[in-house]
């Protein structure tokens, strides 16, 4: 693996050059709420110790709301006008491994039968500069879902702080290599063995469960009363799905702009809303919150794995940190693991 070195100063120059070359730089904001675009390299604040923002950067590749086409009622019929695909070149700077992996995971569902060009274009136009993570709290569980604070999976380039003012940067993908090419003068040659030593010293979140155990338990215990405990206190909001880096459900609605024109929108949707599965007839196949909560867990740890061989969770802990009633998905997975171990 190719590795370079860069000083903090040069990293700022790198950011400046990227802005000049018309890249949009997207970083965790200073308030810890969401990711935001910066227009000046002075705003570059990256640290391996930052707490994951409340919302992930998903919004930039899978918009919370976007028009998919416009329509216009004319005398001789309806005119359809395509929505423009974004040409913005985005760089996610200093992404934690649990965010960096998200584009690859969502990409599977957005290219399963129908190819979603809105997502794909943005994903193709994105560069993920991941970064080793030294934040830990009781909600982190990346190591239980095949990731880790030192994983470069999903990153095109991967930053490793070597001391306060210096970084090593690993070139992970071909896309990353091409991207960094014009700026190589800012980098020195590095040695992967030195950073391997750094990796070894990083303490990892304890592995809380085996995802494979969860997958098979869910398969055999669909009606298990365990889900009732979270189900009866879950309020059925969209917080968990909307802040999640990999939840990807959407709704299609029309919006009028006047009497004879409008646009068709693609908006985030969440399986915890009762409206999500409500049929036109009034029948709702998931008629209580327990069933909806079971869906959330099952989709993440079973269905997505069955279909795409990928866990629909990066262990970032966001949904749990923000849950109004303290439902902790990592803890639930742990409890399911022990249920499975005790064969109940």
């Amino acid at each position, binding site marked *: 693996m190719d590795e370079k070195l860069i000083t903090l100063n040069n990293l700022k120059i790198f950011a400046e050059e990227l802005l000049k070359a018309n890249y949009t730089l997207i970083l965790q904001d200073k308030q810890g*709420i969401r990711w935001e675009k910066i227009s000046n390299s002075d705003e570059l604040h990256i640290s391996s110790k930052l707490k994951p923002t409340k919302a992930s950067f998903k919004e930039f590749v899978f918009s919370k*709301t976007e028009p998919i086409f416009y329509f216009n009622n004319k005398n001789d019929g309806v005119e359809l006008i395509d929505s423009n695909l974004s040409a913005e070149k985005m760089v996610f700077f200093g992404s934690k491994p649990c965010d960096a992996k998200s584009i690859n995971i969502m990409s599977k569902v957005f290219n399963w039968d129908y190819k979603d060009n809105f997502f794909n274009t943005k994903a193709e136009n994105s560069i993920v500069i991941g970064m080793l993570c030294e934040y830990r709290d009781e909600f982190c569980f990346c190591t239980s879902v095949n990731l880790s604070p030192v994983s470069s999976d999903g990153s095109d380039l991967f930053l490793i702080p070597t001391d306060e003012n210096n970084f090593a940067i690993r070139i992970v993908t071909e896309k990353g290599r091409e991207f960094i090419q014009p700026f190589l003068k800012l980098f020195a040659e590095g040695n992967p063995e030195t950073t391997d030593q750094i990796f070894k010293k990083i303490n990892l979140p304890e592995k809380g469960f085996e995802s494979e155990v969860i997958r098979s338990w869910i398969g055999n215990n669909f009606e298990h009363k365990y889900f009732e405990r979270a189900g009866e206190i879950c309020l*059925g*909001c969209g917080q968990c799905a909307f802040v999640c880096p990999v939840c990807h459900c959407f709704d299609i609605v029309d919006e009028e702009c006047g009497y004879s024109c409008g646009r068709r929108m693609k908006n985030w949707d969440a399986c915890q809303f009762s409206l999500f599965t409500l049929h036109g007839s009034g029948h709702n196949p998931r008629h209580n919150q327990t069933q909806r909560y079971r869906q959330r867990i099952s989709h993440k740890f079973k269905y997505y794995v069955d279909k795409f061989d990928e866990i629909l969770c990066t262990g970032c802990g966001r949904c749990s940190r923000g849950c109004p009633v303290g439902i902790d998905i990592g803890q639930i997975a742990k409890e399911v693991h022990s249920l499975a171990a005790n064969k109940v």
Partner: protein
Amino acid sequence: MNELREKAKELLLNNTVKLIIGYANGNGHNRTYPFIARNAADANRLVFNEYCVNNLAVYLTRKEFKGKGIIGIVAKGCDVKAIIQLIQENQINKDEVYIIGMNCNGAVNQLDNSFEKTTLAQKCINCTVRTPALYHALIGTTKDIEEPADTLGEKIKEVEKLNADSRWDFWEAQFEKCIKCYACRQVCPLCYCEQCIVDKTVPRWIESSAHTRGNFSWNIIRAFHLSGRCIGCGECERVCPMDIPLSMLNRKMSIIAKKEFDYSAGVSLDSPTLVGTYNMKDRQDFIK
């Protein structure tokens, strides 16, 4: 804590209540989360402390609990305000709830904070209901707590000073962030409509898209629907993942209700609801 657990056990064992909605500890951290106690063993898990920020009254109107017999609920003074409001709005039957009132010494504003003057929740500043206004049993004692200044009132005054355009800009920057997760609605004890107006699709009154226009419609309609009804528990603002200062709107509306109608929501079972009553003497001049 023991007092609470003993009371809970007694109520469950002698069948006074079917279940108790209370708080239990989180997983090895300070947080507490809503917990349903159904038997003596469960009762032993109940806790009450400054991390019990949730307003559990939200559960009283839920299908899982409503009309299922007498429900016990562990409630702080602010939560009891919501219960009073729900009784007055005929959403719950006063005889179907058993309030275990908690004398309260304040709650934290962020669950990962330790409890100090500077981390006291906004709602607890100048709280007048540290002993609940209505209860069937009362647990604990109140003591003096140090309160920081009421910065919410200041923030509202600052925004009031702005001209209409700047006020618009202020709220536009806030509402732009909204992702329409509806956590504010789901956590609110007084947002109990079975079908929220934003979920109505035939016709669709409120755009479901989370663009600035749709977000304005949503946040303003919610503020209107809670006017003269919000009891100020601050739950909506606490759970908003995008940190939108929803309490500014709610507080402002309650200031108006107080000024124009001398009404505060959830204060007493004897004062009829503001929006549910018509009084010939009501002032009309604010309608322009």
